[in-house]
């Protein structure tokens, strides 16, 4: 084997081709659910377009798998537009995706709030409008680590994206119209908050170098999902102490009513094993209940990741009966499946 081809701890052929090759594998594994449009670099639900159904597309940089390609399928996304690793896709991808899935009832663009994603989706939405497709855009910005202000890029979109895609996907599958589906995503975004921490950086394949250097025994608090450093660095405490910080950050911003029913989503960043994610969930569950909040639904696993970063994020979504019903509705994608 050629020693010079691969100096990272990664399974790679050509670093520049990693996204395309991974999408090829996704399509090979899940040909019953989706197809890979190689020319446009998009993942499209197999039975798209569905006449009369509102379609949902999302997209963003790659490196967050299973987001978004792993969420294409029944009851969730109709298409995903994956960019290069940590680089938002180009408008042509979103335009192609929009055209591929439009069944006449309109297309919703679910956009995580990053300047690149927002701008590229904006150009795509303009192009789609020019072609006569009804497009609405919802920007997800649930990360409480970032201050929201008129003078900043605003909060990042992180864990709530997964929940919004699932819940709005169920609404669309159930026949809701464009306004209703759009509104559902906005409701999820309004009632969800997230906070992430990292115990390591990650190594983008293109550069082959860690984005930042984090010594053992230190934790980055308030990280996003692009391997970027967080708001501050601190000595790594016990899991209980770290979860205290996460829960406090999320709850103090979300301010759920006492007795609220919530969905608690403990997300792994890619390099943290399930053993630890469940340990974290145990802490989260206990601390939320102590705070008078009842986690009636949960999701534990690595669903919105930063390559192989060690870390985790907590997303709390305040539920109502309608959101619970939509969450429980059948979903069949590569990464989330139930009821079918």
């Amino acid at each position, binding site marked *: 084997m050629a020693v010079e081809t691969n100096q990272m701890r990664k399974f790679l052929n050509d670093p520049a081709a990693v996204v395309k090759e991974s999408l090829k594998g996704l399509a090979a594994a899940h040909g019953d659910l989706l197809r890979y449009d190689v020319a446009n670099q998009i993942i499209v639900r197999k039975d798209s377009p569905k006449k009369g159904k509102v379609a949902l597309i999302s997209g963003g940089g790659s490196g967050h798998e299973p987001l978004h390609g792993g969420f294409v399928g029944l009851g969730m996304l109709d298409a995903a537009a994956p960019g290069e690793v940590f680089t938002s896709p180009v408008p042509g991808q979103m335009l192609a995706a929009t055209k591929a899935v439009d069944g006449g009832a309109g297309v919703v663009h679910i956009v995580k709030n990053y300047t690149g994603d927002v*701008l590229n989706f904006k150009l795509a939405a303009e192009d789609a409008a020019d072609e006569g497709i009804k497009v609405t855009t919802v920007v997800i910005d649930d990360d409480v680590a970032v201050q929201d202000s008129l003078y900043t890029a605003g909060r990042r979109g992180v864990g709530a994206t997964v929940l919004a895609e699932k819940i709005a996907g169920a609404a669309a599958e159930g026949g809701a119209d464009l306004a209703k589906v759009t509104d559902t995503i906005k409701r999820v975004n309004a009632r969800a908050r997230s906070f992430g921490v990292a115990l390591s950086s990650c190594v983008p394949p*293109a550069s082959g*170098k860690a984005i930042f250097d984090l010594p053992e025994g230190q934790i980055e608090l308030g990280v996003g999902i692009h391997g970027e450093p967080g708001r501050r660095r601190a000595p790594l405490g016990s899991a209980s102490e770290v979860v205290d910080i996460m829960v406090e950050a999320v709850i103090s911003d979300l301010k759920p009513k006492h007795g609220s029913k919530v969905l608690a989503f403990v997300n792994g960043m890619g390099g943290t094993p399930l053993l630890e994610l469940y340990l974290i969930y145990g802490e989260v569950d206990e601390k939320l209940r102590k705070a008078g909040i009842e986690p009636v639904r949960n999701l534990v696993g690595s669903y919105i990741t930063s390559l192989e970063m060690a870390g985790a994020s907590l997303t709390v979504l305040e539920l109502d009966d309608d959101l619970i019903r939509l969450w429980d509705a059948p979903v069949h994608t590569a990464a989330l499946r139930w009821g079918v």
Partner: protein
Amino acid sequence: MDAATISSWMREIDSSVRAERDHLVQLDAAIGDGDHGTNMVRGFEAVVQALGADNGSPPGRLLIIAGRTLVSTVGGASGPLWGSALRSGGRVLGDQITFDGAQLAEVLAAALASVKDLGTASLGDKTMVDAFEPAVDTLRARIADGEPLARALDEAARAAEAGMRATIPLQARKGRASYLGERSVGHQDPGATSTALIIRALQRAATSES
């Protein structure tokens, strides 16, 4: 100046972002996501290829093609920003075959306006605007003062470079670096850095031929 100036500008950008690729990646790793060098190289490589395939389009048209190419290959924040910039700049020239220094200044001014319109960043937000705006202001002023183009462009490039360095002490208010809050202070903005390269490339392209 004519279509060849634009082609030469794009080739100069291509080779300088390629040479500075790792540096741009490093700057972006510190306060962003470490892809700015890769993004710029991917984009301008595609631009050079697209312009190479073109035969005989006027300079304004070449800028529009370049802008479209950036939009369709870069992604990230810099793709739409520079893409719209070059498209807006190109529109200023219409179908003209040649253009002079004053017109070049208007091309850049339109490009800057487009960046600011799309990205809503102002001077001091620690973005590419911090290098771009002083360059445009300087070029316009020097040309209005009747300075020779070569010198005006050199001063514009210097202004961009000064603007680039001036991003170091700033706290970012736009783009990914803004997520870092105070931790963004002390780092040079990658987009301002590539913008300085782009203006310097223009100075080389416009002076080498004349």
